């Protein structure tokens, strides 16, 4: 039974990493009420719960991008622990951190792992933010073209039609030109 359980968790992680909607919905349905309940007890409201929980899901999504990643705990335990850490951080920012969070402490020894995961997550967020800022500095059509391809996952065929290129090859050539310009901008801001 242990095997089948870990198999399921690995399967869930892989599906989450791919952004599979059905599995994500299941994980959401199963875990959101738990985190919502915990947060209400600890001074949050439903809106905080949605924010925190979704952020925790994104942390897990980030971890799941690495195919070798294995959870040492169940998906549920992981999400709850990350949510607690995220909430604690938020309270610290708001400078109303309580001395100790209610029913906290069972994950004790794993704290460092979660802290590390959050640190990686925040660094990545900052990195992406810089990338988005560089994207916004690009002129048109580059900005829209790259967003269509990378953010909206459109095919070069669709893009070529939407942007009025005569064929996907021309759109591709334009995309590579845009990438060159974006690269200059992005690494210039990083160097600063």
């Amino acid at each position: 039974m242990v095997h089948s359980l870990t198999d399921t968790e690995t399967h869930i992680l892989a599906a989450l990493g791919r952004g599979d909607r059905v599995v994500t919905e299941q994980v959401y349905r199963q875990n959101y009420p738990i985190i919502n309940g915990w947060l209400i007890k600890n001074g949050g409201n439903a809106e905080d719960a949605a924010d925190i929980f979704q952020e925790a899901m994104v942390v897990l999504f980030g971890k799941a991008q690495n195919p070798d990643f294995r959870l040492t705990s169940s998906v549920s335990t992981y999400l709850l622990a990350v949510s607690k850490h995220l909430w604690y951080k938020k309270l610290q920012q708001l400078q109303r951190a309580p001395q100790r969070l209610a029913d906290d402490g069972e994950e004790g020894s794993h704290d460092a792992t979660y802290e590390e995961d959050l640190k990686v997550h925040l660094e990545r967020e900052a990195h992406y933010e810089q990338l988005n800022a560089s994207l916004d500095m690009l002129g048109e059509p580059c900005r829209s073209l790259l967003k269509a391809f990378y953010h909206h996952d459109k095919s070069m065929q669709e893009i070529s039609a939407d942007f009025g290129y005569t064929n996907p090859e021309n759109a591709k050539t334009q995309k590579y030109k845009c990438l060159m310009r974006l690269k200059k901008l992005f690494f210039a801001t990083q160097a600063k």
Partner: protein
Amino acid sequence: MNFNNISELAEAWVNNTMSQADKAALQARMEADAEFAIEFNEHIALIQALNGNGSQKRFRNMLKDIAREQAAPVQKKKIIQLPAHFWRTSAVAASVALLTSFLTYTIISNTSHKPNPDYSTISREVDHLKREQQKQQATQNAIMDSLSRKNAPASPVSDARYSGTGFALTNDGYFVTASHVVNNGDFDSVYILNKDGQYYKAFLVNFDSKSDIAILKVEKKNFRFGKLDVPYALQGEKASLGTRIFTLSYPNDDAVYSEGYISCKNGYDGDDKQYTLQLPAGHGQSGSPVLDEDGQVLGILTAISSPGQANTYAVGTESLNDLLQKMPPGNKLHLAHGNKLGRQWHEQQISELQNYTFSVKVYKK
């Protein structure tokens, strides 16, 4: 190997679409030219960041969408396809009206021997009317959408989502729904949700937007709808006027039964591939099977005539059979010939039918 388009090279590297020979050439160049190596690595970092950022953005959007849905489970299926037929129906009605007046005009003008220069004008006017109605429908949809989500943040327009009903063709996963339910192929993913609340991903096999029929298949290997073969057969000939009919559909996640009769042998605007039915139908019921009392499938629900829902239209099985003749290679469908429902009580028929009918959910970003 061409080193000029470094972006293209980096993309091929990241997507792992590069040949071994090219990889080797590239590595050799990187070892020889440190400047090039830095440049190339920067390009790879950029593309990886763009990919990662993009997929994370889509994941975040999906989470928001799921949150919205779970917050308002009752209202989640407000965007449904059937209303799309209102504009079509009314556009056709408008064009019929225009055509009638035009015909009257020609008759009059013929009797008075005048040339009639208005043909193209009228057709353009029809186009214009259609466009107007399309626009109105779009605003209407937007309003309905915003009403249904008044407690949630506004969503991007491109988040459209459709839901309809489907029924099994073969026990191993082929099924039918209305082509407009799957947006005539323009969607990101399709799932069926069966009576046990399980989702299965499906893919489009074939569709015909003219007759409004689509054939899909459940992706899962060794999938079975029920323990036995599909219990109903497709009716070969056209059913007669007044035939008692019933249907099972999934306007929500629960099966809904309704019954009625064939009120006209032809469908909308005399379409002889369709039936006109007296049968209550509404949102989310497109794609439902229409069965006679013996449990033979006569057609597929496709449209209702107006907001008054005076008439319901179904495409006859003839069009389905036509589409089945034109399946892409590699699709072998073993249709059931026997009709096991014929010998059963009506309640038994309905309960049996629930294994082979389901909600069809279509996602589009």
